[in-house]
């Protein structure tokens, strides 16, 4: 009997030691494994984020831009510096756009033209300062009109509302309206003195709303010597422009051609 007890006790002790050792080794293996995985993921997560960003841009101009910028490293210093400055400017511009707002000094015809080319659905424009841009002879006006024609061919609707103070001024717009209609732009002329007083209130500024989602406006300082362009895609900023345009448009008769 004593022998049996000794055997059982020995087996139990040995078993216990065995179990503890096995458990310890298993736990340390698991720990190693976990650490390896953690290390790998820590290494990779930062890189993956960047890669995901690059991957998204694969079809974009960015890799092309970067390749070309690299190829320019052999060129003259000033060219390289110029290109890098341009890329930096673009990055800053895109950062602003991430925030749905961009501004620049002066009237930015490039933005106007590019936005027109990007439009899918609609362009609604209010024009008060007819003298400068729409004389029809300058290059940028011609290109802008052509871009609007292309937008119309893509199926977008382009509505332009001229706002003038008096009926007499409307007559001067006739050739301009004709030119616009020829490319398919819907044109109306709002004469302020004929409008109901409720509509005459509010600032009469030039603005363009693209796709009902992005506004382009040019602000003049009080002396008219300096202006700045602002584009904004925040719904709460675009909404007032959309409703103002609709109000004025609906209050105006289609102009006679």
């Amino acid at each position, binding site marked *: 009997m004593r022998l049996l007890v000794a055997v*059982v006790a020995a087996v139990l002790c040995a078993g216990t030691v065995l*179990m*503890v050792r*096995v*458990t310890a080794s*298993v736990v340390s293996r*698991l720990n190693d494994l*976990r650490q*390896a*995985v953690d290390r*790998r993921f820590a290494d*990779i997560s930062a*890189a*993956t984020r*960047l890669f995901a*960003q*690059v*991957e998204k*841009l694969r079809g*974009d*101009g*960015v890799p*092309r*831009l*970067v390749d*070309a910028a*690299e*190829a*320019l*490293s052999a*060129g*003259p*210093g*000033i*060219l*390289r*510096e110029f290109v*890098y400055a*341009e890329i*930096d400017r*673009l*990055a800053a511009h*895109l950062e602003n*756009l*991430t925030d*749905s707002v961009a501004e620049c*000094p002066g009237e930015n*015809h490039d933005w106007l033209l*590019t*936005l027109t*080319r990007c439009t*899918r659905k609609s362009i609604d424009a209010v024009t008060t300062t007819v003298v400068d841009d729409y004389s029809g002879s*300058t*290059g940028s006006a*011609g290109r802008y009109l052509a871009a609007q024609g292309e937008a119309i061919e893509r199926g977008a609707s382009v509505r332009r509302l001229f706002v003038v103070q008096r009926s007499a001024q409307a007559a001067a717009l006739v050739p301009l309206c004709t030119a616009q209609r020829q490319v398919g732009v819907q044109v109306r002329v709002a004469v302020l003195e004929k409008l109901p007083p409720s509509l005459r209130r509010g600032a009469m500024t030039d603005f363009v709303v693209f*796709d009902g*989602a992005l506004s382009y406006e040019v602000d003049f300082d009080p002396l008219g010597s*300096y*202006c700045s362009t602002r584009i904004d*895609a925040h719904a709460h900023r675009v909404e007032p422009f959309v409703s103002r345009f609709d109000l004025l448009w609906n209050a105006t008769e289609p102009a006679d051609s």
Partner: protein
Amino acid sequence: MAGEPGTPGPGTAGGVRVPPVVLKTLITVVVGTVAYVVTNLIDQSEDELWKLAMSVVIGGAALIVQYMVDFEKRLDSVETGQRNQTRVLGDQFIQLSEAAALLNELDQAGMSTGDARRLIKSASQVGLQGPDIVKAFARAEIESLASVVTDLTGMTAHWQRDNNEWLIRLTGCAQRTIDATSSSVDRPFWDTDPAGHYLDAQIEAMRDPGVHIRRLFMINADEESDPNFMIRFTALCQGQLDLGIKVRFMVLSPHRHTRAAARDIVIFDDALYLEFEPDRQQSYLQTRLDADARRVDVQVRRFNDLWESAAEPAPRPEPSTRPPAR
């Protein structure tokens, strides 16, 4: 009896917070103590105790074996999973190296990786939220610069309008010299808003890197014979002289000078030039940037020749002339 505490093993091994071996040993000790007390309590019938002890030992052993087999299997599966994951991560690393290569290229090109990161980051984030047109616009802006820079790898790029921004920014990039010919095409330019920015940029360039600016005005014979024009023109020249710009002018004669002579060209650092080309009606302008060494040399020599033969502007006629074009 030692086996019984093994059962909570998977639970503790799962969360490796407390050293699990210590925990297990403790539990074993506790259970052992409890078992010791129980055996003492039922000390009366030794047979019963033995039966109980044996059944517990055998049951425990069976449990341990099951548990160990199960554990081995799970550990295997974890290790297999880890190997697969490593393979996937390896693939990702290969793809990642493309991104790394992109950044590396930029580093070698002398462009700060920070700029590239900034571009990549902003380009990928723009339009994530917000209307489609913002994204389309951003893409168009990227494409437009990309095509210009791609063109520039061939040392020349075109712009379908008079690109005063390039003029101003290149002025900012110049380190040594700016030599400009200014023909009748761009004289109305001096009264415009961009001209103000251009002059500001030139003043800045002359002050900081100490750039030397020479401007050669080209006028034609009709203009030279118009006294009103000459008064305005002299004022313009004096205005620029006052800013520190070296100004000369020459009269283009239709017999001696071809149309090509009247083009507006601005040479920066004798390394590249901007050319403003009017179309036939002189209404459309297009801008060309050229950095081809041979063509730049031709333009530099041409400018120097013209400069030598050009005249200094007349002194300020009367004190009450207009201020500089700005």
